[in-house]
């Protein structure tokens, strides 16, 4: 019987199989940030051990960092302490560390691909659930907890049972203004936030093979929002072109050797998945969420469903609408909004800024909207300036912040105030995710741009 892409990568990294237990899996790349690592480093200290392979670990500061005045000392003392701890730990263990202000600094899942740390066929982990982003390159990438961060630092391995396999196929042609974000929000709305729990997903079909690498990253990024351990897409010409020549990508003979391995990374025709699902891509419309989990999404012209139509408990559904102050049956279009957030590891890359800019060009930001435009990395920030996007954005009344996770999880000062509505290109609309009492509507950069111009939920095709 043939193997799936996932099998090939997973099986080639198993050091040991434990009967009735997990596999011991070797990890090629480990990304570390300031929030989920300090306790892990403390664990190493208690055990009096060092990082086993410092050259396989990369550290950045992103979750907790300010997006203004990064050249100044960090004002929040607790954040500052976390950043200092990471810097100290990185130094002590000889790990490369790209701290605040460093030209390679940015959101962990944005900088991995930018610098060739993310590679096809690699196993990649990080103490952040959206590590699934790196699956866009045909890597097995997933988020881990702090105990596991400690495991990887000390032994370069984790112990996990092999997940089940699911393939999601989307064929057909996407319509205008339908972005990778919409494809992902559409799939999650069909599967629910737990529909892929226990599975590792492979995305296949025309829609994904036609997608840019950045688009694939957006889709894989959101895999975790349907409960999947991760998602991956088989590497192709586009993938190899993207990674070639980047700083940490193998060179010369190493490239050739790696290529021998990468070329085998596809799902064999006779391979079997535990679950197969397929959708028609041409039916997908621009999406937006109305509730408090990413599965509560509808097409932008749709109505909020009735509680009776829900699979889950009616009580939970109504609690969610009450939090949003929305009613069953309401249309989402035309709803007033207060904030727009463009950024995060889901939609904080250059293509996202291009798409946003294209919509707002020659128009003015609505006066009632506060917009936070936060690039995913310094590299993205630089490109925004060099490509002339910043001038256009400024003309339309927008300003650019400095890179970081920002309002995606609102650990820094970028918090949406209580009761306010934010159209956000990030990945989670949980209660309070963007600040206590904040109300989040997840959407694509294009839908976010349209809302920023009109001050309400607007179909970008009708602008």
């Amino acid at each position, binding site marked *: 019987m043939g193997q799936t892409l996932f099998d090939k990568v997973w099986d080639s990294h198993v050091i040991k199989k434990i009967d009735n237990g997990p596999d011991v899996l070797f990890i090629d790349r480990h990304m570390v940030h300031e929030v*989920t690592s300090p306790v892990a480093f403390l664990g190493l200290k208690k055990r009096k051990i060092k990082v086993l392979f410092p050259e396989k670990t990369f550290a950045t500061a992103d979750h907790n960092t300010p997006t203004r005045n990064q050249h100044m000392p960090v004002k929040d003392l607790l954040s500052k302490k976390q950043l200092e701890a990471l810097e100290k730990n990185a130094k002590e263990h000889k790990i490369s560390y790209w701290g605040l202000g460093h030209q390679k600094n940015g959101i962990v899942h944005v900088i991995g691909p930018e610098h060739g740390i993310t590679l096809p066929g690699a196993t990649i982990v990080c103490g*952040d*659930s959206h590590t699934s982003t790196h699956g866009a390159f045909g890597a097995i990438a997933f988020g881990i*907890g702090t*105990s596991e961060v400690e495991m990887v630092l000390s032994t370069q391995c984790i112990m996990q049972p092999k997940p089940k396999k699911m393939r999601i196929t989307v064929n057909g042609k996407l319509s205008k203004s339908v972005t990778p974000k919409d494809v992902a929000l559409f799939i999650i709305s069909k599967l629910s936030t737990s529909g892929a729990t226990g599975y590792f997903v492979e995305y296949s079909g025309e829609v994904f093979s036609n997608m840019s690498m950045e688009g694939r990253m957006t889709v894989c990024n959101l895999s975790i929002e349907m409960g999947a351990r991760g998602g991956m897409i088989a590497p192709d010409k586009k993938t190899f072109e993207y990674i070639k020549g980047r700083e940490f990508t193998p060179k010369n003979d190493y490239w050739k050797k790696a290529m021998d*391995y990468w070329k085998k990374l596809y799902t064999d025709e006779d391979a079997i998945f535990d679950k197969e699902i397929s959708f028609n891509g041409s039916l997908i419309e621009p999406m937006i969420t109305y509730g408090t989990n990413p599965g509560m999404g509808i097409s932008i012209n749709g109505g909020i469903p009735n509680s009776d139509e829900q699979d889950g408990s009616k009580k939970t559904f109504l609690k969610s609408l009450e939090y949003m102050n929305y009613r069953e049956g309401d249309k989402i279009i035309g709803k007033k909004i207060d904030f727009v957030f463009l950024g995060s590891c889901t939609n904080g890359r250059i293509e996202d800024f291009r798409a946003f800019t294209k919509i707002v060009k020659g128009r003015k930001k609505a006066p009632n909207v506060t917009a936070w435009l936060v690039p995913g990395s310094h590299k993205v920030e630089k490109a925004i300036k060099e490509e002339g996007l910043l001038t256009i954005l400024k003309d339309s009344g927008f300003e650019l912040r400095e890179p970081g996770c920002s309002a995606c*999880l609102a650990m820094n000062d970028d918090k949406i105030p209580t009761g306010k509505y934010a159209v956000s290109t990030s990945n989670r609309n949980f209660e*309070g995710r963007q600040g206590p009492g904040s109300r989040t509507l997840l959407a694509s950069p294009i839908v976010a741009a349209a809302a920023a111009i009109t001050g309400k939920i607007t179909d970008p095709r009708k602008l």
Partner: protein
Amino acid sequence: MGYDKFKILKSKAVPLAIENVDTDQIIPARFLKATERVGFGDNLFRDWKYKPNNEIKKNFVLNDHKYSGKILVGGKNFGSGSSREHAAWAIYDYGFRCVISSFFADIFKNNCLNIGVLPVQVSAKFLDIIFKEIYKNPKTLITVDLDLQTIKIKKTNYKEDFDINEYKKNNLLNGYDDIDYLLNLKESIKEFSKQTPL
């Protein structure tokens, strides 16, 4: 490094009958700024426990003194969202040793097992019964026996078996952790690393 051993837990339980409880609710991001594992229990379900002005929300179950115990019973799809282990720490620090639900998110479940909190997955029907029995009598005792892999509601005939993989079970019963195991494999790990193509 290890944690407390887990064998049999007999306790009252706290019913949180909400689905899709995500880790942002269990512990909001603004409380993740510590560099040590201390004090997370105080902020467990912070924004469900308190209003923005720090007033107590009386109708939230953790503020209802009728209910107490070392077992937390949650609705379906418990622990979705962020990978923050702080969520499991907060549950542990608050005093829970076991979480019962009809479905758990993967990373959360792993995190619990790694720090000595037992996630017990029961059928949807059994979960319903647990909620009903606790609502009827908040003093209802539940016995979770890890060795036998059974969960029983005392003074009733309600009982169910639950699954856990042998390796993790053994770890919990003995208070071992994965790092101890992996450190013993160090030499084979080093060998293995030489033959990887990346």
